[in-house]
């Protein structure tokens, strides 16, 4: 149970997001305690990716507030009005949030090592030698120590995704967002990536927000599952509970379709 004295790591307060006329999120409220591993499930188009992208400032919410560690992130209330927070302050929060993408998005103009040390050195100001040592540790952890100087274009999808995970971890994020990180992989490459993520879940206390179709993985790693539909959370429970005895009819339908 989350400690009531500490602020939740992530808090959505009445968040609304529209694309044109398409209302994706409507007054969404939820919070994630520090160290929680939360899996978001729901039908395609229910807004799971949008939630992660809002947290990464890749999209801008139309209403409501998003708080990280209790501090307003992109917008705040001032004199009863919702105003945007300037980039300088957003940046300080953003660097504590990491994201791994479905399509890896490694930088092809850099080697594996360069991908990992670029932001720690140039964004966080970590000394180069320290950043390299850290990157080598992370490469070890994801099982790619021998690919240190390889070009990312020469790696398999599974290897690229593991580098992307190492790159995100090199920023020492408090919050890690994972958006269907195995969906673009050939089936035989999925296991390695999931093993790396399982290891991270076991050995760190990073707060994780996970979108996945790998229900077995969600079951093992997460301690909470949120079921989305129609821009709202319709059910929320421990994975054992939701996967074995879903209460909501829509959840039952959804799980029947994916399991």
């Amino acid at each position, binding site marked *: 149970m989350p400690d009531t004295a500490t602020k939740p790591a992530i808090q959505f307060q009445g968040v609304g997001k529209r694309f044109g006329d398409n209302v994706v999120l409507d007054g969404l409220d939820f919070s994630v305690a520090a160290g929680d591993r939360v899996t978001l499930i729901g039908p395609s188009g229910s807004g799971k990716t949008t939630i992660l992208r809002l947290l*990464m*400032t*890749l999209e801008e919410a139309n209403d409501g507030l998003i708080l990280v560690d209790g501090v307003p992130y992109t917008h705040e209330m001032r004199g009863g009005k919702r105003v945007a927070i300037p980039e300088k302050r957003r*940046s300080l929060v*953003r*660097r504590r*949030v*990491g*994201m791994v*993408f479905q*399509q*890896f*998005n*490694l*930088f*092809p*103009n850099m080697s594996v090592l360069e991908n990992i040390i*670029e*932001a720690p050195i*140039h*964004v966080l100001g970590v000394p180069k030698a320290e950043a390299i040592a850290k990157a080598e540790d992370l490469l070890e952890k994801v099982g790619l120590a021998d690919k240190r100087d390889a*070009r*990312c*274009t*020469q*790696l*398999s*999808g599974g290897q*690229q995704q593991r580098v*992307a995970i190492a*790159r*995100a971890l090199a*920023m020492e994020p408090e919050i890690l967002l994972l958006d269907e990180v195995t969906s*673009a992989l050939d089936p035989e490459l999925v296991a390695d990536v999931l093993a790396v993520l399982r290891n991270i879940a076991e050995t760190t206390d990073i707060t994780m927000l996970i979108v996945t179709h790998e229900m077995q993985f969600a079951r093992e790693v997460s301690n909470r599952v949120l079921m989305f539909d129609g821009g709202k959370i319709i059910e929320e429970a421990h994975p054992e509970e939701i996967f074995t005895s879903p209460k909501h009819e829509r959840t039952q339908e959804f799980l029947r379709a994916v399991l």
Partner: protein
Amino acid sequence: MSDNLQILVDLLPRLGEGVLVTLELTVGGAVLALLVAFVLGLAGRARTRWARVPSRVVVEFFRGTSLVVQIFWLYYVLPLPPFYVELDPLACGIIALGLNYGAYAAEVVRGSINAVPTGQWEAATALDMGPVHRLRRVILPQAWPLMMPLFTNLLIQLVKGSALATYVSLHDLNFFIGELRKGTTETVFAYTVGLLVYFAIAYALTLVMNALEARAKNNVGQGPSLREILRLTPARVDTAEVRP
């Protein structure tokens, strides 16, 4: 015919001077054009309208007006009131070429930057890179190889466009071809020499640009490195060219 050759040999040193002026115009014009292209191209993607609109206007203006008129304007109109700016003919040529081709190249810069997959911007943002850092270290190195072939085209056009400088009294290659024609009174011979020399310059530039393009592509993990190309070893087969 042998008379013609003799005259050509006699004129060779002056022809060389002409080639030099043409190269000066080309290199000067290209460097200026590149500068103009990046300034206008980046401004054309800016979020504020205060950068975007002026960039659009300048690009459309210099693309939409003739190069000859631009050169004449710089040469004949600028010295008049209210400007009173006298430029030497070489400067006129370089500025006109730089602005005109820079306007075209600005569109290349803008389009190539837009062609870099959005996932690259997003990954950089997720690592909290600022806009300048993102552009310099992630986006431009990937946009650059997309720009190269289009820049090569423009550079070749610029070489040929530089012939207009003859009309602001510059003694460039085109001028000396004219001299050759007067000397030999053989139009076919003179202009054939002219074609060949322009072609040789353009071809040499194409080779250089192709090498730069290969290097730029290799830098983003596509194709062999320049060293491999120059060694003329068989191109390495990329067995694991795995791209999503």
